[in-house]
């Protein structure tokens, strides 16, 4: 039994050593990411089925998406992933203010993503390019063009909710960093937040070509 002098503050009582605690957290977080992949995965099934059944609609409808905005958003998220990874690296090196800077930039980029999406959504709402019974746009050839927008809003919508949740988590971790909770010896919450954030980026990496660049 280790003496209390060697027992770090962050080590929980049911773990024997910090390595075990950190590895458990990482394992748990990766399993959680697996569940997120399956959750989004369901929507990828919807996409696959309906695109295979209606290739014409998907092609005709996608041109109404702004590729430039989509590409910018992709750049924004990739950069935010970079700064998130750098934030973890900064704390691995024990550099608190650098960590804070990187986290703040990540947060701002995430916010930018949502702002751009807000403009995209408003434009579509304005034109009536909406899912299901709300669809009123008249410029797309094919039966049931609303299908494309149904899938688009569901997938980018769920993704957007996850971006918001990610931002909330980053704010929480930022506060704790400012408070001095972390060090080179303990930065697990930042690392876990990073893993989650990279997944959000990963999903967008697939959403971008699937909606904006349909052949």
């Amino acid at each position: 039994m280790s003496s209390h002098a060697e027992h770090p503050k962050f080590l929980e009582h049911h773990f024997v050593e910090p390595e075990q605690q950190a590895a458990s957290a990482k394992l748990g977080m990766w399993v959680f990411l697996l569940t997120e992949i399956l959750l989004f995965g369901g929507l990828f099934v919807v996409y696959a089925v309906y695109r295979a059944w209606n290739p014409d609609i998907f092609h005709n409808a996608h041109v109404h998406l702004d590729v430039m905005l989509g590409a910018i958003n992709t750049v924004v998220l990739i950069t935010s992933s970079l700064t998130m990874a750098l934030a973890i690296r900064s704390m691995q090196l024990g550099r608190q203010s650098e960590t804070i800077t990187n986290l703040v930039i990540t947060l701002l980029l995430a916010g930018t993503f949502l702002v751009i999406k807000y403009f995209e959504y408003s434009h579509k709402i304005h034109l009536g390019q909406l899912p299901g019974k709300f669809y009123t746009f008249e410029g797309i050839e094919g039966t049931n063009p609303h299908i494309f927008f149904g899938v688009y809003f569901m997938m980018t919508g769920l993704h957007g909710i996850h971006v918001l949740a990610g931002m909330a988590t980053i704010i929480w971790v930022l506060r704790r960093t400012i408070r001095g909770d972390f060090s080179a010896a303990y930065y697990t919450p930042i690392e876990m937040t990073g893993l989650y954030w990279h997944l959000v980026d990963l999903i967008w990496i697939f959403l971008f070509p699937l909606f904006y660049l349909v052949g």
Partner: protein
Amino acid sequence: MAESHSQKHHILPLSVYLAVGTALLVLTGVTVWVASYDFGAFNLVVAMSIAAFKAALVAAYFMHLLYDSKIYLLILLTAIAFLAVFIIFTMFDTMTRDQIYEIKAAPIEPDAVIYREAVDTTAGVTDTTAAEVIDTTAGDTSGH
């Protein structure tokens, strides 16, 4: 046993992160550029391949899969594998809905055993329908 570094993480040099970040941005540009060419049925394959490669970079470097225990990679691959099963098996159905097989499409055999007058085996129910040839030319059985 008491070490100062509780998380023995290999700390990647800054250059690696920046290189991966740059690669991802370049590949994004490639994705957009490639979309202006038409590869027919392969459009999706090309787009998804580039996306998969980008995803692999994020996973390997930003998420440290290349440097960590293999269990995490196994978890990621497991998720993708079962998602693939979900998509593929569902499409076994959705892509073959309108296929009618010869054996089902052929007219019913009027002399088949099951149409001969059945003996009363269940209480109060006797099957006495005369055999009829039913026209089974396929209607649209696809889901939409």
